[in-house]
């Protein structure tokens, strides 16, 4: 959301004098050093997220399981114990022991059971919702990034033209909360114009299947939420890319390309945009968490059956196991998206393949 440009990565190498140029030795085609560094970082982040997750329910008061058990008698004692272990309610154990048990459960893929969904395993509940979120948010984010980046490259290249007017417009759209834009879209396109259904991922009475009709329904239902996400998040990418382009256009190699008699189109894409996109990918990686956080609210607005709606429902029902599970899964997805962005970066920027800084 900030209009501040991400700084180009600062090489934190060892300085050998002020004028000295560091020698560069061989390189491998696969940027192992870069990738192992990132892998260590992701493992650390994963650990941090899981640990946060461990402490979250331990901050609340009262025993949710007891409350639940008093309402539902057909719960096996084992299930209740497992639930307590996950939620940190087995207070007779030390915190460390609880932490170890928690990890043991996680490693077995056991995220507990959802009180809200009739004690079904949390993993099962989430795995039904996840594809919808990945499909909607993932698709919309990638589309928005692509349009914003390509648009920003063109706007930056044709600086001073009428295209400059796009920047304030998209920035305005990105200062509006997602949910409000979504609600407006529903009011306008669904209620008044009737072009799109009001919510949900597919029509009532349909069962998910690989049929043309069903897919059509999904697209019809998904258009409005996806379009809203794209419109609301486009501005940041466009502004970032445009600013990067302005910086890159002053670089010598762009001037060289023009002196070489390269056609404009080639200079724009192969020389200028190709370099300007690198910081853009880095900020993409770091912004995914922010974007995903913002977009899950869209699922509530559009009653979309994804993990965002799951999280909000769980929050309202105080279903802690589900909340924890959803948070973990969202974090994991963000990490995976980050890794993909990093790998893309590593292959787009040959400098990461350097064996020596």
């Amino acid at each position, binding site marked *: *959301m*900030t*209009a*501040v*440009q*991400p*700084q*180009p*990565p*600062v090489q*934190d190498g060892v300085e050998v004098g002020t004028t000295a140029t560091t020698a560069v030795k061989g390189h491998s085609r696969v940027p192992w050093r870069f990738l192992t560094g990132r892998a260590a*970082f992701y493992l*650390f*982040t994963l650990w*941090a997220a899981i640990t946060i997750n461990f402490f*979250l329910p331990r*901050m*609340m008061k009262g025993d949710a399981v007891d409350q639940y058990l008093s309402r539902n008698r057909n719960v096996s004692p084992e299930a209740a114990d497992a639930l307590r272990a996950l939620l940190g309610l087995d207070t007779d154990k030390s915190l460390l022991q609880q932490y170890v048990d928690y990890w043991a459960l996680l490693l077995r893929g056991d995220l507990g059971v959802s009180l809200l969904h009739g004690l079904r395993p949390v993993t099962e509940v989430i795995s039904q919702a996840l594809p919808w979120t990945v499909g909607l948010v993932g698709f919309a984010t990638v589309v928005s990034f692509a349009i914003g980046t390509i648009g920003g490259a063109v706007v*930056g290249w*044709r*600086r*001073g*033209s009428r295209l400059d007017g796009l920047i304030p417009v998209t920035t*305005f759209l990105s*200062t*509006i*909360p*997602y*949910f*409000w834009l979504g*609600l*407006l879209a*529903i*009011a306008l396109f669904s*209620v*008044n114009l009737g072009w799109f259904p*009001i919510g949900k991922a597919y029509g009532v009475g349909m069962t998910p299947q690989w049929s043309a009709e069903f897919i059509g329904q999904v697209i019809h239902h998904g258009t409005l939420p996806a379009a809203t996400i794209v419109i609301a998040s486009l501005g940041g990418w466009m502004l970032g890319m445009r*600013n990067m382009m302005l*910086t890159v256009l002053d670089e010598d190699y762009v001037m060289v390309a*023009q002196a070489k008699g390269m056609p*404009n189109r080639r*200079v724009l894409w192969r020389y200028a945009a190709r370099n300007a996109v690198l910081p853009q990918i880095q900020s993409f990686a*770091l912004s*995914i*968490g*922010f974007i995903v956080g*913002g977009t*899950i*609210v869209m699922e*509530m607005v559009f009653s979309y059956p994804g993990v965002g709606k799951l*999280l*909000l429902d769980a*929050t*309202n029902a105080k279903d802690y196991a589900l909340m924890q599970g*959803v*948070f973990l899964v*969202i*974090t994991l997805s*963000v*990490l995976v998206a980050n890794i993909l962005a990093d790998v893309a970066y590593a292959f787009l920027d040959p400098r990461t393949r350097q064996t020596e800084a």
Partner: protein
Amino acid sequence: MTTDLRTQPAPAPTTQRVPRPTTTVRTRLGSAFAMFRNRKSITGLVILGFFVLVAAFADVLAPYSPTQVDNTARFQPPSAEHWLGTTHLGEDVLSQVIHGTRGVIVVGFLAAIIATVIAVVIGVIAGYLRGWRSESLSALTNVFLVIPGLPLIIIVASLFDDPPLIVIAAVLGLTGWAWGARVLRAQTMSLRNRDFVQAARANGEPLRRIIGMEMLPNLMALIAASFVGTVTAAILALTTLSYIGVIPVNTYNWGTILNWASAQGAFRQNQWWWFLPPGLCIAAIGVALSLINFGIDEYVNPRLRSAGERARAMKKRGLDVNDAVTAVRTTTKDDA
């Protein structure tokens, strides 16, 4: 005497020498606010100032109490009595929006202050230190960047039965400092190696002076930008949380109004006077903050400003900055 064609001396402050303390204070203040001295920043500051005043004088400005129920006037479109109409309970929407400003401004600024303090401390330290200490602070920053903030805030907020605004601001601040810290770290790292910092070290300046007097002044624009950015993010997060209903709906802010409007089906019944104003207010304050940041951005990186403006100025002279071929303008005008 030395001559240099590249720098023309500015209009001489030396000919009319003012007493020294004044000069120093004035130049200091002048340079501290230089980043806001452009049209975009000033427009943004004016809009922001308007909202701050509304928040401060909400009690005086609002025609009704935000919770005053009037059963005879439900779902009223705008009228002379109710400029922005009424809600399902006959509450005055305008009064709600005016009172709602307070929560938004307070939380936005409080969260941004918390986040900026953390960002400056972590960012500058991580930028000044070297080796594993710097790396681990940087890793910590990135963890906070990567972990999705809003879901975490939703969960944390749901742990409280009735979270006061202070707590909300604190949570937003604690989760929102990372981007600023990252930008500040990068800038500090580049400052640390500048010759003037090395010169200060070689002169034996103590560390606190190097950071406080040599580096911080050069980081001010970035700190301001990161502050403004965090205010934007905090306001968006606050209104989102209120809309979801995680934050109790009895303390008014714009998100709460939208929560009620949505719950009562205002969006489906075209009661635009209820849902448009709060949303537009969020957008207006967002635009104000972006304008401020555009201004700061262009101050930090003059290329950004010059790009558009210069290009348009050139166009007036019949030149195209994108032209890869130098224009020819001979006096005879026989070709172009």
